[in-house]
């Protein structure tokens, strides 16, 4: 059984959209619209970037490690970035509280779609792919916006021609 990069990416994005954060629960995750890179967009829209995330493939796809001409296994990395305004709204300890919120969100996202959670992805993705976590964070704190990042490694079976 094969899958596609789009199916895997969409499934991961859907799982994140369905998450309820553990802190500031009234501010859900929202997917970026990808008109430009999320960091670039967030720098221009700090007031509206809270928990806007992007899920994008990064790097090149490996040459097939196994193939039978109808299915082949390939590997590629995938990066999840979540944006936050650098403000006091997360607590009195300002940057410390911001870092804690980012850490908690990133941990939760990783648990849901990374090594622990990939089995719960949509059927077409999880039966044909293995997702492992490469890294979580650390929070990148900027003067205007900050970011949390999860990097994943995906091994999946695809059609050689589709």
């Amino acid at each position, binding site marked *: 059984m094969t899958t596609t990069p789009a199916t895997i990416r969409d499934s991961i994005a859907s799982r994140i959209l369905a998450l309820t954060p553990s*802190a*500031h*629960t*009234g*501010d859900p995750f929202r997917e970026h*619209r990808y008109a430009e890179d999320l960091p670039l967009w967030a720098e*221009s829209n700090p*007031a509206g970037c809270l928990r806007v995330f992007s899920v994008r493939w990064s790097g090149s796809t490996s040459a097939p490690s196994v193939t039978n001409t109808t299915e082949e296994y390939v590997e590629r990395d995938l990066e999840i970035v979540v944006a936050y305004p650098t403000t006091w709204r997360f*607590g009195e300890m300002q940057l410390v509280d911001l870092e804690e919120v980012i850490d908690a969100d990133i941990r939760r996202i990783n648990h849901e779609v990374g090594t622990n959670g990939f089995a719960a992805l949509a059927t077409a993705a999880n039966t044909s792919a293995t997702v492992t976590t490469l890294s979580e964070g650390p929070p990148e704190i900027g*003067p205007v916006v900050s970011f949390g990042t999860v990097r994943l490694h995906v091994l999946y079976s695809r059609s050689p021609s589709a």
Partner: protein
Amino acid sequence: MAGAEVSTQEILFGVASQSLVLEVDRPLSSITSVSVWPTGSDDTATAESATTGSAAIDTATEATTAEAGLGQSDPRKLAMASTAGFVAGRRGYVSVNGISETFEIARIHANTAIYARHPLTNAYASGATVDMTTRATISVSDTWAALVGKLSQAADPNPSYRVRWVVVHADDSSTGIYFRNADLVRYPSAPPVSPLDVDAAHPGWIAEMLPTDYRASQGRPLIVEATRLVRLDLWGRGIADRTLRSGEAYAALVIDRTVWATIEAGGLRGADVGQALAVAKDRYDRRLAGLVDSPRLAIDTTGGGGATTTKGKGKEVFTR
């Protein structure tokens, strides 16, 4: 009343059962008096018979049933046993143990909680008092509101009436005096601009530009604020906003001002919005110059509701 605490309230001519509203940032225990004068009259002059009956303070009050605010999983949430009397869009007041703040009610949830538009600034113990006693109303006299002679001067941007509220604050029993302004008008000045209108003129405004705390309301409060800014720009040119009789042109100004204000807010937060801000400001300035500074719009010069379309008369008013 929507928007800022201090704004000129428009009383609609010939419409029954209206109220004057006072909103302040401290709880009120009683209203001593409410007086209405023409703006140009002293407090010693005979007051207008513009109100009827006694002023009433909003009575909604409730204790929170859980800790609230800073440090909670949702710092906008105020849990309570009943939400009766609380109204979304109005401003409330929460206090306990000597700390307090005002907030705007964004939404009411299943008679169990209300949610503030913004995360609460302070941490509140369970049992904090949430109340709406920062708001008072008094009925407008239906008879007065139907008097043609009381209509606000159409072309004068200054408010026609001054409302003097004498109140007693609940927190320290002190007497306070507030003044607000009012106009009696045939048409409200606010144009019917919806978030969809702003987004149609500036694609992406709803999905990509709205600040987090204004997403749930689709940015409607930002449009209200932009309307106020346009009104001030018109006043600065000596034009009463209510005289504009082209709703479409007024709406276009509000739409452009809304986008400009949204981008500007990002810039004030430190965002690099230089080019976008310049484009938005230029677009609004050109619209204002084209429609208002160069007189083309039909305006109501008499307050009768009809519009004067000759440019010459328009120019007289615009350059007055």
